[in-house]
């Protein structure tokens, strides 16, 4: 099975999936990139980000050639990059959101 992702800026360490990909999917990399393809290492939905290289804990996550956050753990090439391993540099609450729905866990419906 194949999927594609799009890298916006050559300096980026993530690209955006254009179709859903599962573990072991071969992902073709398009856009401003040197990578041609990579092995997906998790279930990643279309619109979500895949690491195009190994990223160390504390490194900036780069998209548009700019930091969109910081890695909260080491991320291997091909892994999903989202709320569970990337924290906003601006919004302190971003990593407390539900990983699937994005909903704020502390909001009470009582």
């Amino acid at each position, binding site marked *: 099975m194949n999927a594609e992702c*799009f890298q916006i800026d050559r300096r980026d360490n993530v690209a955006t999936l254009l179709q859903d990909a599962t573990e072991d999917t071969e992902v073709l990399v398009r856009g401003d990139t040197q990578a041609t393809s990579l092995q997906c290492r998790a279930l990643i939905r279309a619109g979500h980000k895949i690491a195009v290289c190994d990223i160390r804990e504390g490194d900036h996550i780069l998209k548009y050639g700019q930091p969109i956050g910081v890695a909260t753990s080491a991320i291997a090439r091909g892994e999903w990059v989202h709320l569970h391993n990337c924290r906003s540099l601006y919004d302190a609450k971003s990593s407390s959101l539900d990983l699937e729905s994005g909903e704020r866990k502390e909001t009470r419906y009582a």
Partner: protein
Amino acid sequence: MPETTWQGYLRPDGRKGIRNTLLVVYTVQCAQFVAHEIAQGEQDTHVIGFPGCYDNEYAIRLMLALARHPNVGGVLAVGLGCEYTQPARIAEVVERSGRPSESFFIQEHGGTAESIHYGKALLASLRERASKVERVPMGWRDLTVGCECGGSDGTSGLAGNPVVGRFYDWLIDQGGTAVFEETVEMIGLREVLASRAATPEARLQIEQTYEKAERYCKSVRQYSISPGNFAGGLTTIEEKSLGAVAKSGTRPIQGVIRVAERPAHSGLWLMDSVPDETFMQFGYTNPNDTEGIMDLISAGSQIVLFVTGRGSVIGSPIAPLIKITGNSRTFQNMSGDIDFNAGTVLDGSSTMDKAATSLAGLIASTAAGEMTKPERLGHREYFIMYKHQDTPSLQEGCRA
């Protein structure tokens, strides 16, 4: 990239237009029907107006900027007769700009039918006088372009806005001018934006504008990111904001202009359309896409680009709107409305540079007179509302 010139309309202030449009301006909602009837069936005539009876300096400034836009050749101002905003004063300012203008009150001309008849006759004389404008060669350095996005989807930040950004870089390198706004969608990017300032003064302006947008967001308790954005794959507000700012490209920001203010010289400019904190609180910043497009036209943009991933059907008066999508499916579904498909960069059939070049070609042919899809369909949506910018403080009162 196309090295192009076309024939423009020379205005007395030295600016050049790509259209020679007649504009009917109404000064209160009560005159709206008559204004539209006057323009009905006149291909070269557009309508704008302000619905409020009580006047508002921001709305008047905006209407005056639009009435003296380089694409406008003549103006007819129409009022009912008892509102605060004065059509004769609008006509005076337009006349001083070297354009033919007329004005009247409906109450002084016998009602609907007589006013429409009278207005049509005035329009014919304005057209006659406006047709005498000098035609001159015009190129990229004479062009100001604005860009807005709305009805966005995941492709807007990936393809639509980045392709516009690539075009903006090229336009600025040719000596042209570009404007972008939507500062409330730039939250988290204070340093990213400030680091692009062309001068220390510009840096200060950008920082103050950013801080104002952030205060606005705090006061209305809303940021531009929502749970659906996270579920869709955006991880941080910086990421979403960068997708919106991508339309500005990478060139230095020369400074900040406000609504109805035009850039002092060529290059890239940021527009602040967020209302000032005033006795009526902030009010709304961009209540809809059309409002933002009007802001960009008020800066003198002869063409406005509108990036819409999901697809929108709006157009604009005065400055042609070129609608761009990053979503190839939207382009196919709404092919009668959307002018340009930037989705080709995602499916690999084009590159960012090739797409930007082909967008430049479309802009050049539009500037040379080719009608955009919204123009051909007759879309001329406009929106002018109460807002407060550069108004007296709470202590000074509302009519100081």
